[in-house]
């Protein structure tokens, strides 16, 4: 069982969890109209930090000025600091792990970088945040597009359940920039007015900045859990295996996640569903379909995007904390911005705050790469006996994890199961395409991909070349879990080139969609119809131990899994480094 012992939200609205909760009960929001935010030609609605206030808060923690850290790092550090203080833990001990959830980190530095060159890497920000607290462990970066904040909490559960740490500090942080806003504009995903989640007239999302942190710990004795603590009962991640940017029309992946976290659970106990509710036509329709198909059409549903906008990597953490606050104060938060609900399937949108004495909620989230996640959370009430079996590491007695195939791709060669099968010829200037042709692949979509996706897709193709498996139906018992050090930086640089010059400003949606590292997991899931977990992590360097532990945790957390495509896939500064594996779990008789 894992439960929270401290949390914090730093947002444009307020600088504490309580402050933010009080502000939203008053119906406040800092979403406002900007004619030319970040020098962009098109107007939009954004919720932005007051940097003076942010610097004041940061100065209270740090005596050496505010120049050494970026806005994203400062917000993350303030949030983590408050959560750690509330949890009353020694963050400098080696039994504490930091987990950073962010989609784009310091990507604005691609335009101009006054810091060291490594500062654009997500692992570097995570390292600086962990070092601020003198933490000795290599932090984990979860970069799973918009589901990152929920995925990071599931990662925390996996690491704590594996017994590797006593405490996990989960920090979600996102700040906005020309890069992010222009990309969403090129996707025609932004509303020019306040967003209207689940409304019949919704016309797109608003973006927002925030940082939020939760300290989780683990224990087996329910009576030790402090009253009002938030218990993470179950979490699930599932891929739609449908499209890299459009959600499944039938809500396949999200439905699988909901079904998984509610299995064996009395769903009438779920007080409300805190949905993703971005207010794009497709997302909210998809969520409504998944909720309806799960038989939860009468359960109250809210979205917090009307208060904060979509805070990307921070969203899953921020919205979990506020939903927890709501249960603590025995209320269901109203879905601000919803006027006339209207979605593909009917759902029970919360139009007015409602009193509740319930003790459970479900958090839903979905994002690019076809990823979806669900969390089932409970609040500990006074003197309550153990009602539920909480998320726990699976006690599998006799299982064997075996490597079925392995593929390495570097700048010179492709090695499959120890045999060099392709060697680069001297003058080749399109190595990825050479490999594609050489293995006789027929998949026109390949040429639309960025280099990272091409590398991962080629390796997956080779891993499965001689494997007998069901290629026709979506497989919930297969997962794709990958990691690297550069996230999507190679494609980020290409996208930056489309917006760098004001006189030649044509942000490319086809390039922007690949500026998320987890898209490679989505591409592989689509190609091979993989409907289980899809996750992406960022670390400073490859280590086989990291890959091994990640596989073990993934199998332990997902009893239904039999196969995982996993490993390292990196493409940075023209250099390719792939070490991917197909691993299989068998139960011994």
């Amino acid at each position, binding site marked *: 069982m894992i439960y929270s012992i401290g949390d914090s939200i730093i947002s444009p609205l307020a600088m504490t969890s309580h402050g933010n909760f009080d502000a939203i009960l008053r119906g406040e929001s800092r979403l406002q109209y900007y004619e030319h935010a970040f020098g962009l030609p098109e107007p939009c609605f954004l919720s932005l930090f007051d940097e003076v206030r942010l610097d004041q808060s940061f100065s209270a923690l740090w005596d050496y000025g505010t120049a050494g850290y970026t806005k994203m790092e400062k917000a993350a550090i303030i949030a983590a600091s408050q959560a750690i203080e509330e949890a009353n833990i020694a963050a400098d001990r080696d039994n504490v792990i930091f987990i950073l959830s962010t989609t784009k980190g310091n990507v604005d530095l691609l335009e101009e970088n006054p810091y060291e060159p490594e500062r654009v890497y997500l692992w570097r920000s995570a390292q600086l945040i962990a070092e601020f607290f003198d933490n000795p462990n290599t932090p984990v970066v979860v970069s799973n597009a918009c589901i990152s904040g929920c995925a990071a909490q599931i990662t925390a559960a996996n690491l704590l359940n594996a017994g590797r740490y006593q405490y996990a500090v989960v920090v979600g942080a996102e700040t906005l920039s020309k890069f992010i806003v222009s990309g969403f504009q*090129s*996707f*025609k995903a932004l509303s020019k007015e306040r967003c209207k989640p689940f409304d019949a007239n919704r016309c797109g999302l608003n973006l927002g900045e925030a940082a939020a942190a939760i300290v989780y710990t683990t224990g087996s004795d329910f009576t030790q859990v402090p009253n009002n603590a938030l218990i993470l009962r179950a979490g699930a991640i599932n891929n739609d295996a449908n*499209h*890299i*940017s*459009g959600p499944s029309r039938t809500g396949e992946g999200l439905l699988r996640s909901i079904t998984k976290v509610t299995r064996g659970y009395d769903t009438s106990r779920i007080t409300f569903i805190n949905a993703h509710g971005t207010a794009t036509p497709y997302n909210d329709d998809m969520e409504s379909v998944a909720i309806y198909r799960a038989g939860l059409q009468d359960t109250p549903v809210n979205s917090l995007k009307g208060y904060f906008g979509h805070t990307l990597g921070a969203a899953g953490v921020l919205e979990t904390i506020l939903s927890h606050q709501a249960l603590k104060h025995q209320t269901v938060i109203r879905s601000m911005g919803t006027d006339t609900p209207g979605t593909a399937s009917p759902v029970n949108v919360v139009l007015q705050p409602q009193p509740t004495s319930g003790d459970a909620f479900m958090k839903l989230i979905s994002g690019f790469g076809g990823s979806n996640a669900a969390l089932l959370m409970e609040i500990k009430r006074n003197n309550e006996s153990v009602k539920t079996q909480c998320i726990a590491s699976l006690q599998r007695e006799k299982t064997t994890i075996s490597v079925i195939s392995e593929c390495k791709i570097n700048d010179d060669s492709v090695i499959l199961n120890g045999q060099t099968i392709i060697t680069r010829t001297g003058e080749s200037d399109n190595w990825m395409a050479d490999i594609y042709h050489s293995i006789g692949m027929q998949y*026109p*979509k*390949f*040429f*639309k991909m960025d280099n990272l996706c091409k590398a991962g897709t080629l390796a997956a193709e080779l891993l499965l070349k001689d494997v007998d498996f069901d290629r026709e139906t979506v497989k919930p018992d297969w997962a794709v879990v990958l990691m690297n050090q550069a996230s999507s930086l190679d494609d980020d640089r290409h996208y930056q080139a489309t917006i760098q010059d004001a006189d030649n400003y*044509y*942000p*490319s*949606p*086809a390039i922007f*969609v690949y500026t998320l590292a987890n898209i490679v997991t989505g591409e592989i899931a689509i190609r091979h119809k993989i409907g289980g977990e899809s996750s992406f992590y960022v670390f400073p360097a490859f280590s086989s131990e990291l890959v091994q532990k990640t596989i073990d945790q993934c199998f332990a957390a997902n009893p239904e899994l039999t196969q995982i495509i996993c490993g390292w896939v990196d493409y940075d500064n023209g250099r390719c480094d792939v070490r991917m594996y197909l691993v299989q779990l068998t139960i011994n008789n």
Partner: protein
Amino acid sequence: MEELILELKEGIIDVLNLEGMTPADIDENAPLFGEGLGLDSIDALELIVLMDKNYGIKLANAEQGKEIFKSVRVMAEYIQANRTK
């Protein structure tokens, strides 16, 4: 018009990365979306960028694009009537 159609086909092949295709492979009267070229919603967004970048035509949303991207010929006619560069 025929010149514009050819130019447009070359532009589409380039921005949508239609590997191995030549202008002759695209029927200017056939639907661009649906079965034909296997294009999707991201391709439609990229065509909106192409209209702006090459011809100075700004389309507000993908819905508007649906009408205009019916076929290469419909696109060319729209460009001829509305281009600003």
